[in-house]
C-alpha cells in the first residue's frame, strides 16, 4: 500500500521502446510515489529515462506495463480525451525550450489552457494579466515570444502552466537553456510555487539547481539509483 497522500504513484512501471529487433527499456520497473505538495528533482545521466518518466507522469505517454495511479486512480486504461482532460486540469508543463506558440502574444499564450477549459474571454484575460504580473511580465502582455529574453519566455511558460491552477507542475530541465543568474530567478519562482502548495517534479542534471528541491530522485538505465528526502 502506498501512502494516501501520494499524488502520483508508479508500481513496477516499465516503458519499453522496440527499435527493430532491439528493445530499450527507458523505464525498467520503477516503484516510486510523489506526495502532494512535494518538490522533487529528478537527476541522472543522459539517456537514463528522466524525460520518459516525465512524459508518463504527464499523461503524454503510456506505460508498457505496470501501474500508474494519478490521485489514487489507475489511468492506464483512460482514453486519449480523458488523459487530455487530466493534463488540462491537473498538470502544468514547463519545458527546457519554453515551447511558447510563436504567433500568439504573451497574453494569448498564458490564456491557452483557459481557452481549452472554455473560459470566457474577459475572465481569461483578467486571469492571464494577474499571472503575468505574478511572474513580473505585466508590461509584456502584447509582445510575441521572440521579442522576449530566455528568462522572460520561461516565466511566460510558468504563468501558462499555472493558468488552470493544476496540482502538479512538471518541469523538464527548465533552466537548461538559461544562464546562471536567470536560472536562479526561475528556480526562485518555482520555489515560491512550491511554498504555495504546488507539487513540482523537475528534471535537471545540475546539482546546484537540484538544491532548490526538497527531494531528489537519481536514475540510471530506467531504474531508481537512490532517493534522497529532506
Amino acid at each position, binding site marked *: 500500500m502506498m501512502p494516501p497522500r501520494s499524488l502520483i504513484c508508479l508500481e513496477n512501471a516499465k516503458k519499453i521502446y522496440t527499435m527493430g529487433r532491439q528493445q530499450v527499456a527507458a523505464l525498467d520497473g520503477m516503484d516510486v510515489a510523489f506526495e502532494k505538495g512535494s518538490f522533487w528533482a529528478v537527476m541522472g545521466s543522459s539517456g537514463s529515462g528522466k524525460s520518459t518518466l516525465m512524459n508518463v507522469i504527464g499523461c503524454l505517454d503510456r506505460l508498457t506495463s505496470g501501474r500508474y495511479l494519478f490521485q489514487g486512480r489507475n489511468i492506464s486504461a483512460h482514453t*486519449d480525451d480523458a488523459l*487530455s482532460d487530466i493534463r488540462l486540469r491537473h498538470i502544468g508543463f514547463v519545458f527546457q525550450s519554453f515551447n511558447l*506558440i510563436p*504567433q500568439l502574444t504573451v497574453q494569448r499564450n498564458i490564456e491557452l489552457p483557459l481557452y*481549452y477549459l*472554455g473560459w470566457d474571454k474577459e475572465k481569461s484575460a483578467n486571469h492571464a494579466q494577474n499571472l503575468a504580473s505574478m511572474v513580473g511580465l505585466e508590461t509584456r502582455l502584447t509582445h510575441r515570444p521572440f521579442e522576449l529574453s530566455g528568462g522572460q519566455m520561461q516565466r511566460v511558460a510558468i504563468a501558462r502552466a499555472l493558468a488552470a491552477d493544476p496540482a502538479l507542475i512538471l518541469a523538464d530541465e527548465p533552466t537548461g537553456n538559461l544562464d546562471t543568474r536567470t536560472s536562479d530567478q526561475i528556480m526562485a519562482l518555482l520555489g515560491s510555487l512550491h511554498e504555495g502548495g504546488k507539487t513540482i517534479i523537475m528534471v535537471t542534471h545540475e546539482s546546484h539547481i537540484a538544491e532548490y528541491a526538497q527531494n531528489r530522485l537519481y536514475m540510471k538505465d530506467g531504474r531508481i539509483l537512490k532517493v534522497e528526502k529532506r
Partner: protein
Amino acid sequence: MKQIQFSRELSSGIQTLLLHKLRSFLTMLGVVFGVGSVVAMLAVGEGASKEALEQIRKLGSHNILISSVKPAEEDTAGTTPSFMSIYGLTYMDHERIAQSFSSVKKNVPVKLVRKEARIGHRAVELRVVGTSDQWFEVIPRPVLGGRTLMQKDLDAKSPVVILTEFGARKLLATRQTIGQTIRIGVDSFTVIGIVKNETGASGAMQIPDREIDAYIPITTAMSYFGDVVIKMSSGSRLREKVELNQIIVQVASLDQVESSARAIERMLSLFHKKKDFQIQVPLALLKQAEATKRTFNIVLGAIAGISLLVGGIGIMNIMLASVTERTREIGIRRAIGAKRKQIIIQFLIEAMVLSFVGGILGLAMGIAIPFFITWFAKMPTVITPMGILLPLCVSLGIGIVFGLYPAARAARVDPIVALRHE
C-alpha cells in the same frame, strides 16, 4: 460555450492566415475562380431564362407566327415595269388553317401597308395593320383609351383606326384623340382607340407589334388598299402582290404549340411551291434559352468544377504544409490539454476560412463577370439569392472536404514526438 469557442477559433484562424497574407491569398485563388465561375454560370443561366420568359410574354406563349417572305430568286427579276411578283400567304391559307385544325383557337389575318398619315400639317409614316378584332386577343396590350376593333367594324368595312400611344403622340399631340379624323394615304379614318405597344427587338424573334402601327379592319384594308403594293427601289418600280403578310395563330394549350406549328407548315407547303412563308414559334425561344443555359452550364460548370478541385487541392496542400510546419505548436497544445477534436476543429476552421474568404472574393468576381457579359455580349444576366448562397455553401464545403484530411493529420500528431521536433 460552444459558440464562444467557435468564434475564438475563427478569429485565431483568421489571425494565423493573416501571418502569411500572400500565401493565403494564392491558396485561395483556385476557390476564387471556381466560385466566380459558379456565380457567373448561375447568373447567365438565370438571365437567359428570364429573357426568354420576357420575350415569350411579349410574343405570346400559345402563338404561332406565320409570315410571308419574298422568295430569294424573285429579287433579280423585277426589272421590267410590267413585272409583278406574287408571293406569300393568301386569304385561302387563312381559311384553310381555320378549317383544318381543331387545336387552333384564334386565327388572325394580318395585312401590312406602309402609308403616310397626316392631320393638318403633321405627317408621320405608319405601318397600317389590317387585321381582325382577334389581334388584340393574341397580342394583348393595355388599351389606353377608346376601344379596339370589333366584328361590326370588319363587317361594315368601317374607316376606323386604332393608334399606338407613340403614333397618337406624334400625330395628334395635344389634340383630342378619340373621334379625331386623320388621313391615311388619301382616305379618312376615325380614331377609335389608343393602345400601348411593346418596343425593342426581342432577341431572336421580332415581336408582332411596332410603335408606328395603326390598326384598321382587314376588310377596310382590302377594299381601300388592295393587295398590290408598288415599291420604288433605285429608280425602278417594283410591283408586289401579297394578300396576307402574316397569320397569327393561337392554340388552346401549350403542348399543342409545336405539333400544330409543324402541321400548319406541312399543310401550307402543299399549296406553296416556293418557300414564301416562314413559321416562328415563340415557345421555341424557351427551348433555345434552355439550350444556351445548358451549354453555359457545361462550359462554366466544367471550369468551376476544375477550379474548385484545384482550389481544394491547393488548400489541402497548404494545410498539410501548415500542419508539418506547426507540428511543435500542435504538440504544445496537446500537452496543455487540447483534445484531438479541438485540434481538428482548429485546422478545419483555418481551411474553411481560406475557402470561405476565397468564396467571398469569388462571389465579387462572379458578380463582376455577368456584368461584363451583359456589357459586351449583350446577354442578360440575373443574380438570384440562390446564385449567391449556393457558391458560398460550395466554398465552405470545399474547406471542409479538403481541410478534413490535414486536420486529421494534425490531430494524429504524437505530442511527445512533436515536442522533440525542432
